[in-house]
């Protein structure tokens, strides 16, 4: 239903401990943001892309589709860097340094985006969320977050069917109808979400629910050597970038 979510459960990296992927992607993300954009961002992007399309098994088309919207934001945002306004000569002028700034921002953001996508495409939330208690988050919050994750698919499915039904009755054929339909969809979704919560309450009570949504989370062994290996790639990128700068 959500392409990134579906792909994450099929990723060959699914079974890896989330901490390993966190180290790998987080390290690369730090490289993209902290190192000089040239060649740091480019190297980071290359490593993330190779990892995504190679061992992590991210479908290229799904990756491209997911990247489309944020890339649009990055491009739109960078365009503003090309011009400067309110200068002494004219209201709007081409910023002579604009190109460099825009290119740097684009490179950094695109590389960072790839790191984020690599993590999202290889880490199913079902495996990540129950482990959030280890980070010291209150268990009530973690339970609510996990419930949200489960219920959002039920709600998404409902929303999809209601919208399809409305479209079938020409509910989106004009702008006026559109506003009426979207409003009715939102209201019906709200009512049904609450109804669902009540029914789930009843359903879970039968299974012994008394207020805690405790489940058995299987441990995935986390070997120090694996963490080191996951951290090696970002370190290599950092080392290469820094030595490139020193050598030049």
């Amino acid at each position, binding site marked *: 239903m959500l392409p*990134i979510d579906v792909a994450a459960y099929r990723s060959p990296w699914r079974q890896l401990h989330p901490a390993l992927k966190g180290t790998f992607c987080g390290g690369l*993300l730090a490289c*993209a*943001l*902290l190192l000089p954009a040239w060649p740091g961002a480019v190297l980071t992007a290359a490593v993330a892309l190779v990892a995504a399309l190679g061992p992590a098994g991210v479908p290229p088309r799904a990756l491209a589709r*997911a990247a489309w*919207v*944020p890339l649009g*934001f*990055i491009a739109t*945002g960078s365009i*503003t*860097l090309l*011009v400067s*306004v*309110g*200068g*002494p000569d004219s209201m709007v002028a081409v*910023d002579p340094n604009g190109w460099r700034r825009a290119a740097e*921002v684009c490179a*950094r*953001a695109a*590389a*960072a*985006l790839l790191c*984020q996508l690599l993590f*999202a495409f290889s*880490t199913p*939330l079902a495996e990540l969320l129950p482990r959030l208690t280890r980070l010291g988050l*209150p268990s*009530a*919050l973690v339970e*609510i*977050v996990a*419930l*949200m*994750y489960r*219920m*959002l698919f039920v*709600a998404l499915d409902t929303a999809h069917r209601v919208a399809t039904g409305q479209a079938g009755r020409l509910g*989106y054929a004009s*702008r006026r109808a*559109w506003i*009426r339909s*979207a*409003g009715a*969809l*939102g*209201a*019906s*979704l*709200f009512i049904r*979400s*609450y109804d669902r*919560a009540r029914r789930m*309450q009843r359903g*879970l009570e039968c299974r012994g629910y*008394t*207020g805690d*949504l405790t489940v058995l989370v299987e441990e995935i062994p986390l070997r120090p050597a694996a963490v080191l290996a996951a951290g090696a790639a970002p370190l290599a990128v950092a080392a290469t970038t820094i030595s490139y700068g020193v050598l030049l």
Partner: protein
Amino acid sequence: MHIAEGFLPPVHAAAWTAAAAPFVIHGVGSLTRTVRANPDAKLLLGASGAFCFVLSALKIPSVTGSCSHPTGVGLGAVLFRPPVMAALGTVTLLFQALLLAHGGLTTLGANVFSMAVVGPWVAYTVYRLVRLLTASLPETTSLGLAVFCGTALASIGTYSVTSLQLALAFPDAQSGVLGAFAKFGAIFSLTQIPLAIIEGLVTVVIIRLLITA
């Protein structure tokens, strides 16, 4: 409008995270207190959060080229109040980053600040204010006006904060932060202002249906 991963310099990302943190911590605190007092609220809160996410994922086909939209911020604030919205909104934004690639992880703090803190508070304040000012009008008119103004202004407030965040990160070479704010504001207003009006209208329809249901 979500700031993409990596678009903000690390110092700015960290600063906005710090700025959003107290609100989120306060929200989570009130959430856990609610749950402790009434364990049954857990399922309702889960459903509310799911509702917020789905509302924000609704596509608005008439507006193309918009990065994303804060639909639901205003409605959520009126229905659940701003502190709870800070917590639910943060989770929604995290899910959007991981499930839809809308908004990033390092920019989560900045996005939370604009969409889960400022947006809800603007919506709630404006809603209360308009309700007070229009108390003499018929109930449905007053409610409709308050909801419309609250939601539309929350949407515009959100996008203004985002523009400010970008302007602070990328000040204009000539005119500094103010000029940059004008640039970002102008370029995103093309999509965000019509969106704010539509969102206001849709939310009025939602609230009207909810009070008659």
